[in-house]
């Protein structure tokens, strides 16, 4: 059981670090996907452990949400790139103080 949880934690850490340190919004996006899938892995693992169906169900929901999110997120990134010629998250600071 432990290897699944450890793998899930490692994946989540990699995803979170990616989000925090990378400037390219597409890479940041990938980091987010990685964290979502790390969570999925945990869900499935615990579902198996407890012989319960709810964890697997949650994993499917996460996948659906992730798919929808990819569509919206990529559209935003493309749109931002069109107007600003940049995909760096540091340049998207219209709302700063």
């Amino acid at each position, binding site marked *: 059981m432990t290897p699944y949880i450890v793998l899930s934690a490692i994946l989540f850490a990699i995803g*979170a670090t990616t*989000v*925090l*340190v990378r*400037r390219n919004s597409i890479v*940041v996006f990938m980091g987010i996907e990685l964290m979502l899938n790390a969570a999925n892995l945990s869900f499935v693992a615990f579902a198996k452990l407890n012989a319960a169906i709810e964890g697997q169900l949650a994993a499917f929901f996460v996948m659906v949400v992730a798919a929808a999110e990819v569509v919206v997120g990529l559209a935003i990134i493309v749109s931002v790139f069109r107007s600003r010629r940049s995909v760096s*998250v*540091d340049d*998207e*600071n*219209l*709302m*700063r*103080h």
Partner: protein
Amino acid sequence: MTQTASALAAAQVATTATGATNLLWLTILIPLVSAGLLLILGRCADKWGHALGVLAPLASCVIGLAALFQVLGQPQGQRTYDLKLFGWITGSDFALNAGLRVDQLSLTFVALVTFVGTLIHIYSVGYMKHDPDRRRFFAYLNLFVAAMLLLVLADSYLLMFVGWEGVGLASYLLIGFWNDKTPNAVAAKKAFISNRIGDVGMLVALMLMFWGFGTVSFSGVFKAAGTASTGLLTGIGIMLLLAACGKSAQFPLQSWLGDAMAGPTPVSALIHAATMVTAGVYLVVRSGPIYSGAPNARLIVVIVGAITLLYGAIVGSAKDDMKKALAASTMSQIGYMMLAAGLGTVGAAFAIMHLVTHGFFKAGLFLGAGSVMHQMKEQTDMRRFGALWKVMAITWVTMGMGWLAIMGIPPFSGFWSKDKIIDAAFIVQDGQTWRAWLFGLVALIGAGITAFYMSRLFFMMFHGSNRWDDDMDPHESSPWMTFPMIVLALGSVALGWVLSWTHFPEWLAPVTGSVSDHEPVMPSWAITVLTLVVVLIGIAIAALKYLKQKVPRLAPPGNWLTRAARQDLYQDSFNDTVLVRPGQALVTATRVVDTDVVDGAVRGVAWLSVGAGRALRLLQNGFVRSYAALMAAGVIILLAIVLATRV
């Protein structure tokens, strides 16, 4: 004493008003409507405003006199009427009707106020002829007449208080009539504030009545006063006296009256000599049933009257300003009335009689002073007058009548009333012989000083050498002004005798209590002779100093008493030090507390929020990654807390 009170209450069983007495409410309404019209119509009414202003009190006078004669035709015992106007306050436990109490006392005042008032309105037509604001002046005068009539006709203390405040307002507006000059506005404010102090007494008295008797109507209060405790009656009596002191310029609230002379002279004559300032005497006499149950309160009234009558006489002897000398004299004469009113049944009727005669001769004196002022370019310094008798014969004669009347020379009107008051002061009450001697001698000496200062005024104004400023050309005033002066002079000559002859004090007896036969400590004829001797001495001293000797145009430095009297015996300095400055300090302190503590707290909260916002704003740096880091940190902290608490 309680027997007298219940006897009084029993005598005042009232019948419903009929005939002219039923119309008395019109005497209040007509001047009130006229005042309203004159104020609302504004400049449109400038041309004819004074005519309406004169007709309104004239109409009141006609109704008032008709009512007086109707009541005179009734048999004794049926001369009290109740005129119900409307239900004023209705509650489950407390109900009060607004109504008029028509009896001997209120009718006396109605007659005095409307008659003298009408004369002074007529005089004002001439006096204010060249004033662009004459219409506004008449509006205020009419307002005063309405309020004064409401004061004397009201059938409850609360309704009387409405009139009480109304005359205070009119007095304030008229003292400050020429309020473009700062001293006038200050004088108006001073009068207003002094009156407010008295009003506190009135309010406390009202509350005490409501608390003790559950009613504030005259009939209810007087009925309850027969059985009330002495302590409560004393409290009410002292509070009513405070109110009377404020309104009637009695010690220690007298300092406003001298400054009130800043108003136009007809105002000084009507409001600050003949009528409004006597409202305090009316209050004390009207509240007779309360005072008869409270000997200590009565004693305080007598003491206040005695102090004021000497105080006013001393101040009047030193003033070179003609109007201020007359104002001090008014104070002193009202002191006599207060003293008599405080003596109870032996003096109250004479207080009212002196009030009526004083209303005539003092108004006449003031109108004469106004006539002189008019011709001397508003100059009031008597040291710049002299020898006016040749050029202003009518003013000279009419003021001369007033002069003889106020000194109490027989058979002029002041003799009949003042002599009785001095007589009453010598009567032993409550077995205290020394009090009779003390108050009697004070009244006697006051009469001497009165003779001195009035003769001084008269000689300095009309006799001696000509001390006018260079550009003066005085001559007699217009008939508008001389006619009222002549009528008032006739009153000064004959009214006292007429009132005595018609048994005026006995007529008042149902309200004031009958004048019982008390013997003064000296025989009455001795008192009269003594008074006349003292008066003659006063005149002689004045003649020596101001007729024989030349009067200097500039006031000599004088001795310490003269200097003190010129400063109103330092009353203003005393008030400034003891009341005004601490009051202002208190106001400043509360202002500082308001701006620094109350506002400071509000501003401090605002300042904190602004500062916090300014600091937190820096977090919005626009870097998505920093937001994400903050969120991550938050999640980690939350997780740590959750885990730590679970272990």
